[in-house]
């Protein structure tokens, strides 16, 4: 029997706030929602969402997906060559960040990076030739995420590039990421001049093999504890990786010195110097760790947990566990932030790169509370950083106790974005990110904060509703 008449009347009030005071003055309670029409005001989608809310089967599926993500152990097992490690990477194929996109539709930095990679691979000797090749369809393009891989910014992975190999030892799946080139004129921002190609060649010939040898000596590196430690040192392992890069550098240095006899001393010095000079060196490891954890959670029937958020500078795409492999896209947003001297919003590309995989996994913007320095990019305070993290708790399925945040009283980071919660509350996932110049080759021009666009989440809800819960 409903005990409504015998209980104290405790109201959640949606709509006219004026209804609340009389309730309160006559012994009831009332809490006013800061309500806005869900699903971008599309009432049919909003009703479809309502049918999915608090559904027993979906909730159970999400529990499974979240547990799989939490149980995943991302371990760095080595460095390999892309063509040998990545399944389905064809001999004349380049992988790029974000959802799939045709050459002619790519943004400036991604185009620049594609051309640079073609020259780097030796498929063309000039950029002009490279452009003719790709324009005639003689180079295949595909999304990194289709190959268990991720790449920051333009996200280009070409067959001969060295890649990090991360294995989830719990479930046995692997993920991959290219190695970070540092700041300035780099391929991931679309630069493709001789110095960029030279660096890539050096990374292939020296950096990759050297780190590979060191790792062979060092053995598997558990990335989870390293990320957890960095979160306590001011990193959020997306836009700030200074601590994590330092921690990783410490591991490599000693191991490298231990096998000095087997290595070329000059190559070891150059390798360590290259890593030491780059506070973002760990980013690519962080991304691959997040990818391997989320891929473990993918493909759980009925689950509404987001497993991918990725951008290609034109589209922002997401994937959800229950609809494995399907992209839901919306135009990529611009990033609000601070610009390096001489640049402004007018120069900026739209949001770009697979690095939002970190937010998808609960770090990056979701763990902004761990990294108050980041919030200064938008003129915020440490309190704002904490508020951002707390807000993300409202759209996630749980907290990952492996990644604790001191500012949350050492509670776990918000983890497992639920598309239903995003569409219901219109609270958008927050993303910390770098800003690329919209033209190829200029590089990073700033950094800041952006939000995933609502409409891709609405599309995912619509697709789930159409498919139905089984």
């Amino acid at each position, binding site marked *: *029997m409903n005990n409504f008449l015998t209980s104290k009347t*405790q109201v959640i009030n949606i*709509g006219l706030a004026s209804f609340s005071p009389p*309730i309160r003055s006559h*012994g009831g309670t009332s809490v006013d929602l800061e309500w806005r029409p869900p699903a971008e005001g599309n009432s049919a989608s909003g009703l479809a969402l309502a049918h999915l*809310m608090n559904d027993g089967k979906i909730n159970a599926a999400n529990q499974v997906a979240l547990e799989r993500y939490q149980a995943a152990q991302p371990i760095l097992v080595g460095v390999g060559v892309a063509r040998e490690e990545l399944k389905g990477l064809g001999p004349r194929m380049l992988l790029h960040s974000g959802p799939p996109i045709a050459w002619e539709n790519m943004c400036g930095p991604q185009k620049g990076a594609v051309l640079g990679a073609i020259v780097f691979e030796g498929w063309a000797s000039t950029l002009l030739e490279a452009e003719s090749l790709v324009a005639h369809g003689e180079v295949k393009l595909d999304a990194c995420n289709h190959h268990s891989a991720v790449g920051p910014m333009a996200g280009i992975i070409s067959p001969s590039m060295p890649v990090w190999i991360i294995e989830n030892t719990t479930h046995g799946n692997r993920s991959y990421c290219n190695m970070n080139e540092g700041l300035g004129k780099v391929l991931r921002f679309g630069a493709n001049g001789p110095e960029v190609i030279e660096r890539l060649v050096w990374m292939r010939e020296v950096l990759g093999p050297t780190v590979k040898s060191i790792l062979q000596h060092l053995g598997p590196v558990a990335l989870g504890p390293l990320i957890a430690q960095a979160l306590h040192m001011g990193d959020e392992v997306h836009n700030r990786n200074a601590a994590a890069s330092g921690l990783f550098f410490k591991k490599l240095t000693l191991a490298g010195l231990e096998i000095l006899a087997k290595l070329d001393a000059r190559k070891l010095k150059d390798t360590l110097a290259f890593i030491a000079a780059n506070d973002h060196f760990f980013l690519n490891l962080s991304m691959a760790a997040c990818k391997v954890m989320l891929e473990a959670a993918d493909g759980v029937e009925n689950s509404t947990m987001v497993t991918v958020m990725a951008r290609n500078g034109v589209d922002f795409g997401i994937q959800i566990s229950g609809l494995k492999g399907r992209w839901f896209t919306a135009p990529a947003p611009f990033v609000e932030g601070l610009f390096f001297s001489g640049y402004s919003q007018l120069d900026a590309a739209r949001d770009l790169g697979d690095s939002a995989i970190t937010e998808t996994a609960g770090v990056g913007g979701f763990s902004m509370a761990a990294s108050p320095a980041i919030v200064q990019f938008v003129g915020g305070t440490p309190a704002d950083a904490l508020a951002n993290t707390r807000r993300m708790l409202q759209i996630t399925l749980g907290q990952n106790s492996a990644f604790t945040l001191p500012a949350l009283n050492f509670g776990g980071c918000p983890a497992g974005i639920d598309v239903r919660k995003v569409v219901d509350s219109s609270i958008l996932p927050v993303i910390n990110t770098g800003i690329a110049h919209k033209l190829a080759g200029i590089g990073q021009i700033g950094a800041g904060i952006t939000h995933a666009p609502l409409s891709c989440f609405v599309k995912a809800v619509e697709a789930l509703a159409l498919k139905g819960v089984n």
Partner: protein
Amino acid sequence: MENTQHFLTGYYRDSVALMQLSSKLAAQEGVASASAQMATAANLELLVNAGLLDQVVPARPNDLLLVIRASTAAHGQAAFEFAQKTLDEKPSGGGPEKPEPPRSVEMALSAHPESNLVLISTPGEFAAAEALKALKQGLNVMIFSDNVSGAQEVMLKTYARDHELLVMGPDCGTSLIGGVPLAFANVVAAGAIGVVGASGTGIQQVTCLVDALGEGICHAIGTGGHDLSEEVGGITMLAALDLLAHDNNTEVIVLLSKPPARSVALKIIAAAKLVPKKVVICFLGAVEQLDGSNLSYARTLEEAAMLAVGLLRPSRKLSLTGRLVREKNQLDPHRTKGFVRGLYTGGTFCYEAQILLQSALGEVYSNIPTKGVKKLPDLWTSVGHTILDLGDDVFTRGKPHPMIDPSTRNERLLKEALDPQTGLILLDLVLGYGAHEDPAAGLVEVIRQARESAHKGGRRLEFVGFICGTTKDPQGFEKQASTLRGAGVILAQSNAHAAEMVQYLVTGRLL
């Protein structure tokens, strides 16, 4: 263009802080571009590439380099001083953390797990979704919003029935649960009478009259105006009847409805017959009755209130004359010439007046005609005796309900006054939470203007009205009554009583 460089020692700042400073500097008056960076070799090179430095200078990595390009030396100097001031500023505290308001039912429930009702007054197209979310969280729902489709109403109510939950509405204007007023409700005494109503104003009228008779209300449960339709089948009224039947505080139950679907009315009466409590049934316009020792039938809302109190207190002599402003014998039945124009804000009052007046006055028109009443051909022009529900969607489109915003009725009232055929204007005045804060004050001003325009045409207008409210309502029954009385409005004790007075004034006969 003046280009200046300043190396500052002892000002190490991280790159984010310096980017903020750069952007603030660039926004200073007369500054074309500016940069604040630690003077590392890499940064110096960046400055050269960005055109802010002509050539690479020796690195001083622990010093801060300001480069300011300004239109005049004075602007450059001012910007430099601004930079120094900013660098020397002590940071202010973060301030207290303010909790963010919940954005969804799920969020509100997780912050307030003791919640048991969601009250929804969003635009109608979104109301069903919010209601469904609430039901799926195990919460009862009251939907004040209208414009929810019949199919959605059936879907919600069926779900609620299957999960032992209550859906009040859609289009539910009034409820009162354990003394807590929900949406449009009057402040009435607590007591032993429980009401279930498919009519917001019907509930208001009965609860106010019970209060005036010295008794009180335990719960008044609105079902929404469509609950007793064939399509919905009275799901909520049956559920609410069951709740009151099992409620220890409820001794007498009153069931109210605007004209219901016949089969639904019979189904509900059959259920009421099985309740071990006295039940008063007031289904306006319904003629069929089933006999039952616990059942009583009321023809009007006033009668329903009288019966309920009578059943609860059989020995008490009941009278509402304390609310009467003028006895019938003070009225002159031959004073009124012309037609009656009823301008209601309460839909149920409009139905009740049609039912009561059609037999006495003959041909009656309305925008919501009940059996025997004609549909008004042009809703904006009254014909003969016309009784209107100005709360109907066709009149309110884009405006608040006339109980909140009286302009819809005021305009119609002035229009009726210009019609030479208008002789008497019949009005309701609804008090309570949600209603206008002082409805009589604006109304009497319009009545004065109406009388004036009739007077210019050599005519006289009569005004008959009643107040649906209590002495405890925020607007104050006495204050509202005296304002209306001051404007010469003949005040009745109830809507039914007002209809009786109208008949007497027009025909000279009593009902």
